[in-house]
């Protein structure tokens, strides 16, 4: 027991030789033999082209998908043995289009998990106010708005606040800033960095933007066709010789200088 406790106190998430194939006739393998450990407090960035399996990997963490082979451990427990509802209540999740509930106000969106967890009113209200401030939205102005009355950047902020609401130790973010204009995006990235340092969450962040990965990651995992192609901290990532790393690095070189 001691060994186990000690083990998961370091690694909040762990993939042990995980493969996942689509459950249809073709049984195409979209994740192949992934082994990976995410220690507490890390901001792990999953980088990869479209279709490389980034979203699939996230969904394996919160039990929305179960591995075909191998095991995914979250807080020391195998996902197949977790009660999926309990597992997910402890994991914040942010997706590209925010996925806010259009029939809820901003306040109600943020209060979702606390309300599912039956927090009392005062505690929920206080938490919602605190979180809206944290993501830079003035509660008096935004709390009662509906998602359709927000800009894309504001929606993403609400999405982040909602994911953080019940103070989950783990945060999964699937291209949270993908749909934003470059300026807003840079702004949210900067804020995210401060936030991540302050909150001490274990974060798995998905992107296909190398620049974003270099900026936010404590470690970058490069996925290629469902396999891990490279793992490195951002300072070392660009020095790697792997062809897929070179391909991403090349995109970095051509982009900024490109004429408008």
């Amino acid at each position, binding site marked *: 027991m001691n060994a186990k406790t000690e083990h998961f106190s370091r690694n909040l998430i762990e993939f042990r030789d995980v493969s996942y194939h689509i459950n249809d006739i073709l049984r195409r393998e979209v994740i192949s033999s992934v082994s990976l450990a995410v220690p507490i407090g890390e901001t792990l960035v999953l980088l990869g082209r479209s279709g490389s399996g980034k979203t699939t990997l996230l969904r394996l963490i919160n039990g*929305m998908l179960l591995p075909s082979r191998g095991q995914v451990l979250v807080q020391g427990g195998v996902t197949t043995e977790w009660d999926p509802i309990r597992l997910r209540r402890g994991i914040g999740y942010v997706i590209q*289009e925010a996925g806010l*509930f259009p*029939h809820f106000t901003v306040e109600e969106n943020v209060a979702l998990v606390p309300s*599912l967890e039956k927090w009392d009113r005062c505690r929920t209200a206080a938490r919602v106010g605190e979180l809206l401030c944290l993501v830079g939205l003035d509660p008096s102005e935004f709390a009662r708005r509906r998602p359709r009355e927000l800009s894309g950047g504001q929606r993403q902020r609400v999405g982040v606040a909602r994911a953080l609401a019940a103070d989950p130790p783990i945060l999964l973010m699937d291209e949270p800033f993908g749909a934003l204009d470059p300026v807003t995006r840079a702004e949210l990235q900067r804020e995210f960095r401060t936030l991540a340092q302050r909150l001490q969450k274990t974060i798995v962040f998905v992107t296909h933007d190398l620049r974003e990965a270099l900026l936010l990651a404590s470690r970058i995992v490069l996925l290629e066709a469902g396999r891990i192609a490279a793992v490195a901290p951002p300072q070392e990532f660009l020095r790697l010789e792997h062809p897929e790393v070179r391909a991403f690095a090349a995109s970095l070189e051509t982009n900024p200088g490109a004429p408008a």
Partner: protein
Amino acid sequence: MSPGSSGWSFFAEHRAEILGATLDHIELVLISMVIAMFIAVPLGMFIVQRPALRAVSIGIANIFQTIPSLALFGFLIPIPFIGGIGKRTAIVALVLYALLPILRNTYVGLRGIDPAVLEAAEAMGMTRAQILFRVRFPLALAVILAGIRTATIITIGIATIAAAIGAGGLGTFIFRGVALVSDSLILAGAIPAALLALAADFLLGMLERRLRVV
């Protein structure tokens, strides 16, 4: 004398009778719609995640819809308990007609939710029931109501035929008018029925717009 004025004087002379028949008609429609809603909406919610049941139940509802109304009323008369002459048979038939539009819209509305919203709901740790009642259903409400609106208008029209099996309502005037070759009598049934349909359409349309969230 112009046909118009003879029509109006007919209306004036028989206004009590016409009002009574209109109320009967409304009663027939309301009872049928309430029953149809209580069957079709829960059924739609039940079949939304069960593809096999969905095909069967929508298929059956479809079949009822294709039976000509006069024939359906005829078929029902000899059936014990639900059949016979009168209101009850008419209500059974009207319910059968109203089922399909409500069922189909309930189903379509519940299915047509933004996948990102459903993904978020699942990832937040909402149970299936919570997703159904707190996300799918409120977001589908406007579409469900559109089905109820369609069904109501159909029912108001078909209910006029129910007079053929002695269920009363505005159809009584129409059938009498056809038998006596009297335009005034036919209009005394047809005009209030048309007005009822328009009013229902307008009111339910308003409600539907209020419920539309996005």
